[in-house]
């Protein structure tokens, strides 16, 4: 695990270095693009100074590292607010969306996979296979648009845009339903397939036969003995999934006009708002690294075989 931690540290340093140099890797003058054609030279110089662009490149990298370590990701020149505060305002909505989607995916996908595995070859299994493969192939933005047209436009039972009133949990939840379903659909199918395959392997293990031979009820065999082992690879996938969903949430946030980190980064890229792009990407990268590291720990903890090898 120590080696894993050291590698994680180097990955983070590499990401931060790349982000610090990002502004120089992309062609064009970001300050002129930000300020427009009519901007006077004095304003351009002022903004360039604020963005540290008048310093040598190594100095700019140093300042980025130093400030980031102190929680200062710079200032969004457009709104004059700190990048940290903007990300802090947007991030919870993305995390909630990603986590809710994953939870939905697990709640639907895992039981579907278990049911298919316990009825192999039957019509239930075949239907589940078709459904899960279909769900995997449906991009989140397509599902999102369909859900919008049906539930927000045609039936008008759910809202189309925004995240509602944060102070009203019911309203917030109402605005979360469609985006969360859209984002979770592909993962439902994926988890169903994954759990089915794992379960089939585990259900053929000798200790399962032994458990059945001892007269243990089938329900207990499936859920207490088999599923606990079959779900282990799923946990690792869920960790990767959380990171991926936070990235994939960009499209859903745009379609549903739902402010979040994805939308923040997307809009910032369009306007070449480098402080926001850097800060946003850094936070996403750090979260991805942290979640994967955490899943390694969990994996390490729940799988006795990994502990024995370690």
């Amino acid at each position: 695990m120590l080696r894993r931690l050291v590698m994680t540290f180097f990955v983070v340093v590499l990401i931060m270095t790349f982000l610090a140099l990002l502004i120089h890797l992309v062609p064009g003058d970001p300050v002129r693009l930000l300020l427009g054609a009519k901007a006077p030279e004095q304003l351009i110089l002022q903004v360039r100074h604020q963005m540290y662009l008048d310093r040598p490149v190594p100095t700019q990298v140093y300042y980025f590292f130093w400030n980031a370590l102190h929680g200062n990701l710079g200032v969004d020149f457009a709104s004059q607010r700190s990048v940290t505060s903007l990300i802090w305002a947007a991030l919870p909505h993305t995390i909630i969306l990603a986590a809710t989607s994953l939870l939905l995916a697990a709640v639907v996908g895992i039981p579907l996979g278990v049911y298919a595995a316990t009825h192999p070859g039957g019509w239930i299994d075949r239907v589940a296979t078709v459904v899960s493969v279909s769900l995997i192939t449906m991009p989140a933005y397509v599902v999102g648009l369909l859900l919008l047209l049906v539930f927000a436009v045609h039936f008008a039972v759910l809202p189309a845009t925004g995240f509602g009133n944060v102070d009203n949990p019911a309203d917030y939840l109402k605005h979360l339903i469609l985006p969360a379903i859209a984002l979770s659909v592909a993962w439902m199918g994926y988890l169903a397939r994954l759990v089915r395959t794992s379960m089939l392997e585990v259900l053929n293990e000798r200790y399962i036969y032994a458990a059945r031979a001892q007269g243990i009820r089938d329900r207990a065999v499936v859920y207490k003995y088999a599923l606990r082992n079959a779900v282990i690879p799923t946990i690792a996938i869920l960790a990767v999934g959380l990171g991926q969903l936070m990235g994939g949430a960009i499209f859903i946030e745009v379609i549903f006009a739902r402010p979040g980190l994805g939308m923040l980064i997307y809009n910032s890229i369009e306007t070449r708002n480098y402080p926001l792009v850097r800060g946003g990407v850094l936070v996403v990268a750090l979260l991805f690294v942290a979640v994967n590291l955490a899943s390694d720990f969990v994996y390490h903890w729940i799988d006795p075989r990994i502990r024995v090898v370690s």
Partner: protein
Amino acid sequence: MAQARNSIDELLQSLSRGSLSRREFLQRAALLGVSVSAAGSLLSACGSGSSSSASPSVSATAAGGKSLGTLNVRSTLEVGFLDPANWSSPVDVYTLDAIHEGLVSYKPGTWQVVNTLAETFEPSADGLSYHFVLKPGIQFHRGFGEVTADDVKFSFERIAGLTKPKLAAAYQADWGALKEVKVASKYEGTIIMKTPFAPLMRSTLPVLSGKILSKKAVTQLGSGYVRNPVGTGPYEFTQWIPKQKVVLTRFAGYSKANSAYAPPAAAAQIVFQEITDDGAAQTALEAGDLDFAQISTAYVKLLANSPKFNLSRMPSLNYEWVAMNVRDPFLSNINVRKAIRQAIDVPGILEAAYNGVWPRANAIIPQAMGLGYWPQAPAYNRDVAKAQAYMQAAGVSKAKVSLTIVDAAADRTAAQVIQQNLADIGLTVTINIQDAASFWAIPGNGGGGAKRQLVYNYYVTEPDPYWSMEWWVTSQMNLWNWSEWSNKQFDSLFEQGAATLDTAKRQQIYQQMQQIWDADANMVWIAFITNPYAYKKSVAAVFRPDGDPMFWRFTGA
């Protein structure tokens, strides 16, 4: 029971404010145990007559249009700077236009300049001074006191860069000729100019650069002012959640400075919701989340006969064009340029790239500008035979030429049409698609760099021909003059147009400039950019002659 009654009261208040639709009211009333018939009676008593979901509540007011509850409007971009000196996006313009007022303004729907904060406003005959007397008792928002001549002095000198500390304003050029504002008394003063500047009465005083700010508020709030603007307008700034929305609330203490030409503000609140994606905006419009939204040109035909929405397709003053670099060895031949101009199918581009929504431009100044329009500007319709004749005269049968565009869907479509058109006259066009950052890089490197040949692009402008022409003079070569064209007479007329106050003379000047330009054949005019808007039939929208919505002037229909 008391709790249910309180809840019903809350529902009724929400309905009246327009934050609840009829459908939602009925659903929630049912949850409170109110029968359908009783709920219907309550609805009627509230006067909620609209049948569309989530429409703003509409009731008659004393004078002018019907009132609106909350007006939900799409904002295509995030708000940039809520400061007239440094605004950066059209959304800033709409927001600031509702918050601020100037000495004079454009009467809604026209280019007629009318007094707003000024009781009297008298320009001198030589254009070197403008005497004003303010209406007494006009109050700034949030208790920042009364408007005085000192505020006028501060507002204009601030943008001009004459205050201490000096502000580096993006729109300093609007007040570039300002010498000072002399204050004679609490409400009286004179704007003194260094030189006459004719555009002052069109593109400075009646628009954002002419808005009056509270000196006290700007000084007190400092750099935080851009997030807390203070004006005298019918709406005051209430809330800005970055990347999400801006909320304006009707100013209860409004001093009715615009009462001579506008009814009382009808909407209780205006909410600008940032929705950058056209598809998401269109869905939100159809779902009832929005009352007014800019839509894509592709959506216009779908909504053309909609029973739920009205459409606005007023062309702006901004213009789309193809520039030919006259300093390029191949394009320096005027016959080649004439051939290109004659071969390009402009109506075909308008149909393919803009779904036929944008009107064709035959010269730089649109009719909507109200000054400088050249009605006899020739329309060069595609004529392959004539174009080939020009090519023959140039002694060219086949050649390669590059066309630089920014990476945008419509631009790519237009470029493909041009590529096909020019192939018919022996020109092989290489389309050079550039990222926006490199496309707009200056000096001299924009639009494909110093070796650019053809460039497909657009410029925005203010409501005065001066601002349209300024980028095409000799001093803008290697900067924003992407045809690299230089003409002494054109430059001289440009200077005259800025200094001449007589409208008829200015009209002649700008028409002559366009004629000179047309004779040099270094541009192919494509279109005047049109931003289509869709809005609910329960909303009566008001626009400037250039198609910009004036949200503070919206009422219920």
